[in-house]
């Protein structure tokens, strides 16, 4: 789990259309997915998706509703297995067995639904399924968890009125921050965020964006972030990936594309899909 970021090695601003196996594995690839397919009965949620996450970067994934973004996340966290395709973590092919397995490898996810238990306190949520226990027993060490939770929230610069408050009583931004705190506290090196800014006002969004950028600046974390807002994504991310109907339709360095360009691509893909459907 201990991991030292390779200093000075920043991802070169390249675009790559396809990941053919012949391409040598870059040392900077922390996570690599190849040709991931996921079907749910007759539904094909992912149809051959490949991605790379480099050390220290933020990868933004954009795409329509139902494009398969959350499905991809849940495969990367070991929540559900892919139907086919391969995952490489630190360059080694890895079959994720469970959420715990992925967590042990330093992969943490903040799901779209946040995975928070509303009737539990802030600190119990931060430590959910990773509780501090009295040695030898399964008895919760609430005092230690409270203390750690306060420290952790302070460290990432998030203000919550009381760690004893029930999470259900907090605002959307605070809840999101708690979910992120949970992942950060777990010493994640790969952080997956599924729509971290969904249904959030400008001020709350600013709080979360600030937090994400600070985590990146600390240099221990690589982040994949699912987003809906193009402008925000281009602001925060180093690289962006566009997903449509279970496939990656476009990838680019964030600096070398723009909102209008992305809009054009989405529209073109959509029209292409429509004509294709009609002729079929």
């Amino acid at each position, binding site marked *: 789990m201990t991991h030292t970021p390779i200093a000075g090695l920043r991802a070169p601003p390249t675009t790559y259309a396809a990941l053919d196996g012949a391409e040598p594995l870059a040392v900077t690839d922390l996570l690599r997915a190849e040709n991931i397919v996921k079907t749910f009965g007759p539904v094909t949620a992912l149809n051959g998706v490949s991605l790379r996450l480099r050390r220290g970067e933020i990868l933004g994934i954009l795409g329509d509703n139902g494009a398969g973004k959350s499905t991809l996340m*849940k495969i990367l*966290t070991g*929540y559900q297995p892919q139907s086919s395709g391969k995952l490489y973590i630190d360059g080694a092919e890895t079959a994720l067995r*469970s*959420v*715990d397995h992925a*967590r042990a490898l330093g992969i943490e*996810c903040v*799901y779209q*639904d*946040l*995975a*928070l*238990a*509303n*009737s*539990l306190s802030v600190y*119990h949520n931060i430590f*959910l*399924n990773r*509780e501090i*226990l009295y040695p030898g027993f*399964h*008895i*919760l060490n*609430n005092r230690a968890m409270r203390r750690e939770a306060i420290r952790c929230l302070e460290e990432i610069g998030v203000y919550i009125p009381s760690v*004893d*408050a*029930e999470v259900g*009583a907090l605002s959307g931004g605070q809840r999101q921050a708690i979910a992120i705190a949970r992942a950060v506290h777990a010493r994640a090196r790969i952080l997956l965020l599924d729509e971290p800014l969904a249904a959030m006002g400008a001020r709350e969004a600013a709080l979360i964006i600030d937090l994400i950028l600070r985590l990146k600046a600390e240099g221990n974390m690589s982040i994949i972030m699912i987003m809906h807002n193009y402008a925000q994504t281009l602001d925060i991310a180093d690289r962006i990936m566009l997903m449509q109907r279970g496939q990656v339709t476009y990838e680019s360095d964030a600096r070398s594309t723009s909102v209008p360009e992305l809009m054009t691509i989405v529209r073109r893909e959509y029209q292409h899909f429509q004509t294709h459907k009609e002729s079929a």
Partner: protein
Amino acid sequence: MARTINSMLRWRELSVIVVAVVLAIYFQIANANFLLSNASLQNLSQFIAPVALIACGEVILMIGGEIDLSAGMVYALAPFLMYFLTRAGLPAPLAIVGALAGAAAVGAVNGMVTVLLQVPSFVTTLGMLFLLNGLTLTISGGTPVGVDASPTLAFIMGRGGYAEFVWAALVVLVMHFMLRNTRWGLHTIAAGANPVGASEAGIRTRELKMVNFVISGALAGLTGILEAFRISSIDPTAGGTHIMFLAVAAAVIGGTPLAGGSGTIAGAMIGAMVLGILNDGFTLIGINAFTFDLILGGAILVAMLCNILIGRYRRRMAVS
């Protein structure tokens, strides 16, 4: 001052305690013998104990949005299991353990059908309710039998005046502590509040739910055995839906919502006390038998409503 009020408002069981105290004061004023005589206290404790015991199982299931409708029938079956095991030559303590295992096995079946086949537990345990009733009536031939055990064992297992209440108090204490202070308890509440989220966090929610059905079954069995020892007779028509619904009512009065997501064992205990106070109080005041259930039912409704309203107020205050 504001701090004490605040910490009191955080205390979930506060509202039901208020309801219980107000009722106790009312009946004490209406009938001087209500609390202060040993006989009526013992009577009260014997009403409360089985309701509280079964309610412990219902609470941990209700937190997960489930329910065990068959608890009252497990209650009737378990002492017969004990009886037949004793008849087969097992010493009484082992027969008790065997009967508890049987009750737990019923819970396991309830849990497996509910979780693995994804049948609502309302349906699973409703079926189990009829099935067990038929089973108990069949193996007993419909007639009550006696309990044979040494006087000491019988005393400990319910014959002693407050024995069953002591059992209930112990189980409530242990379960309350476990729900609040162990990993199992925290995960039970988390899985109830957000099932998908809990499993995304890596909690094995299905196994957890099955375990809780087993606990519920075992507790219902224990209750039936204690009651059999208390009245020195094993009755195939004992328990049934009445005791089960009282237990569910106790849980709800105590502050565990039927919709799940949260719950409190101590609250259910006090809920059982509220039911007991209502039951004994109206009996002592001497209400007409026909209107008794009418008044009791109305009072239960009012008690539930009071608790829900006070609880809502408490939450609003705790946030601001």
